[in-house]
């Protein structure tokens, strides 16, 4: 009955300097510890995944990285700067962009406008300039719109659709627009919260291919939250497994997959 506590150490392979690092990151909601002292690194220009069963604290962890939640303990370091106490909009302006598990587009705006909102930290027009519409503001608007079109094309939204209101887009297009919107802020790190949720296997495969292309084209680091093991194993270069808010394993996908504690977390205890 007793399972020997074999914890095969899977030392994280050295993947280069980190763009994002967390140190003992902890979040407590009242008595519940949603994330418990998680330290981890996202190396530059790598694709890293966080996996774990439902309720493992993945999204909470994400929300701390982007500043939406303030950690109870621990630190978040992005590009060498401590961003633990920064506001979400400041963190985004520094180069962290994200998508949401339940798509959160601005429903009454068109696809192009959604992407232009994503450019907000990169544009400068303020009240006076917007009212007078100075040549500089005009140019900024024109270039912003052009860039939004290019991004939508890049993520694969049909040009016939880009002036459609976001709510009227198909589910797949909404996901694509959300990624374009995140890319619009010229991020260094892209956080994707279950990007393949609700997709069929082919679509998932396309998307993982696209994530790799993103990294190669734009030199991005990508942090994925995923549920789907196939996606994770196919695309990630490093996997971190959370369970009950704790990090239980980390390393190369192959090694992590066979880690008995990971198997246990996903499938339950054997015997």
């Amino acid at each position, binding site marked *: 009955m007793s399972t020997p506590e074999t914890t095969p150490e899977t030392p994280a392979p050295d993947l280069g300097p980190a763009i994002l690092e967390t140190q003992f990151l902890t979040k407590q909601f009242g008595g519940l510890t949603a994330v418990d002292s998680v330290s981890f690194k996202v190396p530059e220009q790598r694709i890293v995944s966080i996996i774990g069963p439902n309720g493992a604290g993945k999204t909470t962890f994400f929300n701390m990285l*982007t500043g*939406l939640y303030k950690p109870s303990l621990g630190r978040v370091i992005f590009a060498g700067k401590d961003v633990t106490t920064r*506001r*979400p*909009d*400041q963190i*985004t*302006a520094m180069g962290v*962009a*994200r998508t*949401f598990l339940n798509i*959160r*587009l*601005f*429903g*009454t*705006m068109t696809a192009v*406008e959604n992407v*232009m*909102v*994503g450019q*907000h*930290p990169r*544009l400068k*027009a*303020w*009240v006076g300039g*917007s*009212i*007078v*519409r100075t040549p500089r*503001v005009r140019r*900024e*608007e024109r270039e912003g719109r052009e860039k939004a079109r290019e991004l939508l094309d890049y993520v694969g939204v049909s040009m*016939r659709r880009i002036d459609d*209101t976001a*709510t*009227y887009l198909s589910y797949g297009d909404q996901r694509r627009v959300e990624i374009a*919107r995140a890319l619009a*802020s010229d991020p260094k790190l892209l956080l994707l919260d279950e990007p393949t949720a609700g997709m069929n296997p082919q679509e998932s495969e396309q998307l993982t291919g696209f994530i790799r292309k993103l990294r190669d084209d734009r030199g991005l680091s990508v942090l994925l939250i995923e549920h789907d093991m196939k996606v994770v194993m196919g695309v990630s270069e490093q996997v971190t497994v959370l369970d009950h808010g704790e990090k239980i394993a980390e390393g190369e996908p192959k090694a992590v997959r066979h880690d008995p504690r990971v198997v246990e977390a996903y499938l339950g205890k054997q015997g």
Partner: protein
Amino acid sequence: MSTAADPPAKRRLPPLKGLDGGRRSALLAAVLIVFALIFPFFLDSGSALLEDSTVALVYVVMALGLNIVVGFAGLLDLGYVAFFAIGAYTMGWLGSSFFSTRDIHFGVAEFLQAQPGIHLNWLVILPVAAVLTALAGAILGFPTLRLRGDYIAIVTLAFGEIINRIAVNSDEGVFGIGSFNLTNGRRGITPVDKIDLPLVEQFTTLNIRPWYWTALVLALFVVFINVRLRDSRIGRAWIAVREDEIAAVSMGIPTVRVKLLAYAMGAALGGMAGTFLGSFFNTVNADQFEFSFSIFVLAMIILGGLGSIWGVVVGALALSFINTRLIPDVLNEVPSKIGLDFDLTQLGFGIFGFLLVIMMVLRPQGLIPEKRVQAELTGDEGERIDPIVHTRAP
């Protein structure tokens, strides 16, 4: 499939020959503006209709100001009357003999030079009031930043009431503290200087035309500001905050600054309108600044269509004329004719309420809905059908 795709097409007006949608509405706007400009020549220079039209145009300014806060940024503001009050008092303080111990004059007519008090030209008072009310707007916005939806309404309502109470109770000491007379309470500040513009005929109670044109220019200016802001980075940020604050902040929009800016802009426009009305009514007194006024302006933008600039203009004109002409002049005979004995003007707000209920049933998106809000309200999946796919598969 075909039935689902039809209704949106039917709603559109038949296109004028040789004009696309944008140019057609530009032409319509130009015709309306020209009509509005020459309209006073058809009327007696002191006619009541011209007076009511002037007030209606100022209400357009107020409604467009509130539209920035409620329509664009989605912050339900029930204390808008406060900014009307602050603007009007600024006019009263800087343009009357109220502070009779002071003796400051700038850019005013000769007969005013001889009078005691502070007398500044309206063109000076206007930006001062705009800045003061913008500050007041930001101060009001501050406690609401952490709140959402209905709770913002409660805080702003309280703010409007506080300003009203200060206005009522500051005739002997500000809010009863000290002995300085700030507002003269319900008696109010009167008379207030008439607006006086260079190169324009004299503004008097008997000649309403210059008042009307000034109000018209002010209203057009504010429409212009609204259009430009809506189609800008700021406007997109406001709408993003209205739609989904979490997503907005995650896209790098500093929600605090953006919301405070909406309050400040909306308030500044209300304050500018306030200076005009203070001068036009020739009095600034506490009874003008009741809570019901906030509701009145809010009803205008709901009637017209939240967030829709032209809708708000139409809503403001409609409610204003219903208030000043339809109810007292046209309908007031009705009760006595059917054997009832009451004054219909007393029921003004009942009638507005009734109108709003009718609107919500028949046309919840407003008279001229913003295209975004319309999409949100109708939200029917049938409209998604791609016309190209549709024709290919008969």
